[in-house]
């Protein structure tokens, strides 16, 4: 890969930039190995520097992404919304350019990169950025940075600990960036082993039990995922990949590329819903693929690669095993279960309380703030686009699972006496909104409502990432002072720690969805969308807002109100602690007051494109 940097036709800035974003933390972890063991403070600062650098690179990527969105603005769409900016269009264009008889040089300006990793098995090293992944990457970089600040007090096997956290960060960022399914799977598994050690070595009393449980549940999901990926690899995609002109497409082609496979999925959806005449061939003008404009009312959906023989392609597709309802159902079920374990949904959530209770505070922050988001992201990026027909058939049941998780998580949280466990269950409840929001698939003229639901789901992931990590940090601070987490023995914290109380009040209320703070926006959009989709799913979600308020306020009362001689002498938060907590509190306010300006402005075009592509094939 390095020699390609020197070759002027192969040089590609995106490749370098995205790889740096992915691997910078691992490089820092490698750097840690050089620092002699007695310089512990140096190690902390070094890894902090690494996390800061990663956050900086992520922020620069955001600026670059905004530049990319802006570059296609014209009067046919609202600014920043041009379909040529969509990740799948950029990926297809790159594939088309590479497949020419004389391949075009790689573009350095499309925020997408694809290089062969293993040509024998068609595995590509392909990374790409869109609004959703970028938002989650920023969240990851931020939460990891805060987690490193929060782990200043950890002294046991410090080098390993810091390295694990940095490797974890790399794995998560890689998973968010990966476009190739195999590459995604590699990153997805790469997160597993640092997490296992972080819980298993630096955890609490039952850490081994929790670590093993975490690994087994996650592996169960991964196995489903792997099965789905291998199944998808078996599909013959010869009509969906661009070929040099004159190629007769006589050989079978297989791929791990999620963009190509999602086009196959949409074609299958058209066939299964009896609209096969709408399958069209992508057109090319001036060497560029022509994107589908949002206001395009043309019934034909361009799914086949340019130059494909449409009749033969449809005939081949209909003969393939993938084009059967059973196959699609199984594929979607595998993908859904694979990611839902991570979300987590009822009844596969029971690893979460154990992992949270045993994990050290910074690891809990990362777990709640980042790792759960991979589940939602996977549903968004892979489960729905790769098996859209089954998803649209089953979306009510998916929404039902989400609604059950919302209600169940809230009720169980109310019955807890362990502060941390309570927050773990509240995560189940809050992440249920993500599943519900994604599942509210309304078609036709109501498609905007689904768009709102998906907007809400993704925003809810960001908001939950902020509030949940912050609240776990709050628990950590309380635990550091009280050495227990029993809600019935806490109380009276407001008087000795007023600033801490104020900051955590913002986060508590953000978590219970108070308007003006970040938790409200996502929940509200999901509720609006769910109401349009099905009253039966919306009403439990709305009623749960009461339960959420009840258990969080009850907790608040038990921790902060009253008088308690045991807590009266607690120290106010230190500058180090306040730097973390106040950052989160400020973000909770900022995202709640200006969600449109700060987030949706650049994130929404990707979601709009995603919804548009799927709604088009619903018919």
């Amino acid at each position, binding site marked *: 890969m390095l020699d390609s940097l020197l070759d002027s036709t192969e040089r590609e800035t995106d490749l370098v930039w995205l790889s740096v974003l992915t691997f910078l933390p691992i490089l820092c972890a490698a750097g840690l190995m050089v620092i002699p063991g007695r310089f512990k403070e140096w190690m902390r600062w070094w890894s902090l520097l690494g996390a800061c650098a990663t956050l900086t690179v992520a922020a620069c990527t955001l600026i670059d992404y905004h530049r990319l969105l802006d570059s296609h603005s014209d*009067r046919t*769409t*609202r600014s920043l*919304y041009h379909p040529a900016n969509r990740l799948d269009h950029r990926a297809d264009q790159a594939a088309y350019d590479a497949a020419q008889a004389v391949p075009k040089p790689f573009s350095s300006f499309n925020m997408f990169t694809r290089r062969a990793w293993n040509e024998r098995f068609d595995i590509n090293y392909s990374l790409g950025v869109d609004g959703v992944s970028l938002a989650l990457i920023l969240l990851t970089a931020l939460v990891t940075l805060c987690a490193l600040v929060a782990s200043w007090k950890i002294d046991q096997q410090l080098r390993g600990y810091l390295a694990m956290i940095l490797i974890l960060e790399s794995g998560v960022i890689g998973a968010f960036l990966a476009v190739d399914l195999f590459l995604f799977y590699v990153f997805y598994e790469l997160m597993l082993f640092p997490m296992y050690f972080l819980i298993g070595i630096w955890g609490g009393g039952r850490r081994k039990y929790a670590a093993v449980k975490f690994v*087994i549940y996650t592996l169960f999901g991964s196995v489903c995922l792997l099965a789905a990926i291998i199944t998808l690899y078996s599909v013959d995609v010869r009509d969906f990949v661009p070929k040099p002109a004159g190629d007769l497409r006589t050989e079978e082609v297989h791929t791990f590329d999620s963009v190509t496979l999602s086009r196959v999925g949409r074609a299958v959806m058209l066939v299964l819903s009896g609209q096969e005449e709408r399958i069209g061939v992508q057109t090319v003008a001036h060497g560029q693929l022509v994107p589908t404009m*949002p206001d395009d009312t043309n019934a034909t959906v361009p799914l086949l690669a340019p130059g494909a023989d449409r009749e033969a392609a449809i005939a081949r597709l209909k003969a393939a095993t993938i084009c059967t309802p059973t196959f699609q159902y199984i594929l979607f079920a595998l993908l859904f279960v694979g990611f839902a374990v991570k979300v987590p949904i009822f*009844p596969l959530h*029971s690893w979460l*309380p154990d992992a949270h209770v045993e994990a050290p505070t910074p690891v809990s922050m990362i777990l709640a703030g980042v790792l759960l988001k991979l589940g939602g992201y996977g549903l968004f990026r892979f489960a729905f686009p790769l098996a859209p027909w089954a998803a649209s058939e089953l979306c009510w049941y998916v929404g039902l699972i989400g609604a059950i998780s919302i209600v*169940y998580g809230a*009720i*169980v949280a*109310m*019955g*807890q006496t362990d502060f941390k466990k309570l927050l773990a269950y509240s995560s189940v409840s809050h992440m249920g909104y993500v599943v519900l929001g994604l599942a509210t698939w309304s078609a036709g003229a109501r498609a*905007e409502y689904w*768009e709102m639901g998906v*907007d809400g789901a993704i925003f809810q992931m960001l908001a939950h990432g902020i509030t949940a990590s912050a609240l776990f940090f709050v628990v950590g601070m309380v635990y550091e002072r009280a050495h227990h987490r029993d809600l019935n023995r806490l109380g009276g914290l*407001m*008087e000795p720690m*007023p*600033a801490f109380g*104020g900051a955590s009040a913002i986060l508590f209320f953000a978590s219970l969805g*108070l*308007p*003006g703070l970040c938790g*409200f926006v996502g929940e*509200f*959009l999901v*509720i*609006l969308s769910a*109401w*349009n989709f099905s009253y039966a799913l*919306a*009403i439990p979600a709305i*009623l749960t*807002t*009461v*339960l959420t*308020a*009840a258990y969080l*306020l009850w907790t608040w*009362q038990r921790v*902060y*109100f*009253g*008088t308690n001689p045991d807590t*009266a002498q607690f120290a*106010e*938060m*230190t*500058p180090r602690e*306040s730097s973390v907590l*106040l950052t989160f509190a400020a973000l909770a306010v900022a995202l709640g007051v200006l*969600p*449109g300006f700060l987030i*949706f402005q650049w994130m*929404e*075009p990707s979601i709009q494109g995603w919804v*548009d592509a799927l709604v088009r094939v619903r018919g």
Partner: protein
Amino acid sequence: MLEFFAEHPGRLYVAATLLPLVPAVLILLIGTVRNLTRPYADVPGIAGWLYARLNHPRVELAGAWLSIGVMGLVSFIAVYGFTTLLYEHYLPRLSGEPIAPWNLDDTRLWNVNADGGQIDWIRFGSTPVPDAELDIIKAHSIHLGYWIEIDTTVMFAMVAVVGTMIYVFSLGYMRNELKSTTIDETLQHARRGRFGRFYLYLNLFVIAMFNLIIADNLLQVFISWELVGVCSYFLISYYYERREAGWAANKAFIANRIGDVGFLIAIAISWSTCNTFMIGALGAEMPWHGALEPLFSPTMRTLLGLGLFLGCVGKSAQFPLQVWLPDAMAGPTPVSALIHAATMVAAGVYLVARCYPLFTPDALLVIAYTGCITLLIGGTVACVQTDIKKVLAYSTVSQLGYMMLALGVGGWAAGVFHLLTHAFFKALLFLGAGSVIHGLHHEQDLRKMGGLRRKMPVTAWTMFIGVLAISGFPLLSGWYSKEAILTAAATFGVAAPSHVVLAVVPFLVAGLTAFYMFRLWFLTFAGEPRDRHVYDHAHESPLVMTIPLIILAMFSIAVGWGWPAWEPEASFLYELLNHQHWPSSHFWDDPQDPLLNAATLLHEYHLLLELIAGAIGLFGFAVAYWRYVLRTPRFHATNTEPRGFLGQAWYFDAVYDACLRKPTQNLAVFTAAFDKQSSDHGAPRSLDGLLNGIGQLAANTGRGLRGIQNGQVRGYVTILGLTVVGLLGMLAVLTR
């Protein structure tokens, strides 16, 4: 700068809404820095220096004075806006046609649609939409905006003026919050003063309240709705070291959240049917507003109205969610005056008034009955309370019931009018009670008071004006608004005889009102002192507290006046509001409007109605005088804690506790046990145990199979041999 506002006068209101943000942010910043530097107080360095500078009563007082100044400015803007709107748009037309308030194209209103001051909060979709075009077919954005009408300006001015008075009053009332105290003598629990925090919460509250008043769409109302709720939460739990304060705050917030479920459903209905939250645009979709093809089905219309009203039930403490308001008296008394009497609890009434065209006749009937039940509950329970603030709290519940009843029976202007007059005299009464509590060193029990008029004359006589006003004494503001409500109720009773109870109950409770208010005043100020110790230490409050009382008393007298003053219908404010009102016939399918007929009929007898109301009020006063002035000595001995049906406020708390709180908690504990039990190894007694059991199954299988792998070559060889024989046999059979 001035042109900016002159161009779109509505912007003045946005600026006024956001102004209190300045002191709020300053107080918040200073408080945070002070708390964070406290650990370094004795350490030399910049942190210690900062702490020494900031930890001074002067700093906190400066914050309070800044807040008062800002509120004064806001009051000025509000009064300026009100008079401008009045002179420019209303007075010239007062004699002409009524102004249709729902006409969105009407550029005379300071309407955001006319001057394009909307901001997109969140935008969706890729379709390019010209900003000016109001497109409600495609849901493309959620916007924030303002919508100023005459009721908005009046309400805004009321909140600003009452707020300013309460800000000033709090300077005196909260003065002891400037210094640290010890809350528990045995534990030596230190308690730092919370003066700055009080003004911080108040500032945040008025921002949210102003935003609620000017909002032009349901979402913005909802946002402010919850924000005033959370400010109320923090102010109720202001004395959070007290156990009951925390519970009361939780109760208030959760009761409001239950109401907000309805509000959210209403918002969801409006969005999924009309793609808009705009109150005006929603009103335009109603059949009685000329929508040719209404998007709503009749059921959805009623459901929308009921959902909205459920939100108002929570916020305005209507039956069956009225239970939180009396408990909310755990907060400081100025807060009870501002939030839990004058402004926030009236927001529900205001919302019903503002969304009036969205309610179907069925929904309005529900509103009327709810108001009727509420005013009866509040009125009866207030008669037996012994805590001075609790009496006022139940009185507030009852008066809010009056307003809802008025709105429900079609007396739109009467309801809003009573909302305004009530705000002034109830704020006066609460501040008076605060002054008494302050003068008696935080004694709130009526049984220990008596004869205080000699010690605190200003408080006593200003409060007397408040009592007269709320009891409907002629020529005071309460008289005008109560007459308007009673007339509206009587009209409805005549027009719809099957609902005559809606007309009878308010008349009867008018007598109760006079009874419990005079009871309060007599027990506090009249007669002889019942507790010598309390009486001896009592003192009149300082000027900073009595001047707001006097100003509010003047407002309570005069705010309803018009010419001729002895005609209750001649009240200027009422006439103004009535003029904005659309004909009530929109709500009746019958073209022969029975309400109109009844109104003309009743107009003949309005003097009789006034006489009846006056007589009932006089009777209430007489009973109070007889029981509490003529027979005072026996009161102290016989009256213990309030008990029984009325003393327990119709047993609402007990029933809710047994039917809602306990079952929910039990369900939570049960479900938690169903989900995971700490001690289930082996036997799956919970969901977690079951899933673990599946894992154990694999482990057990492995353990069982381990016996075969015993390391004895003999066993392996036997299996090997048998397998070979078996395979060969299979081969033989298969190839045959």
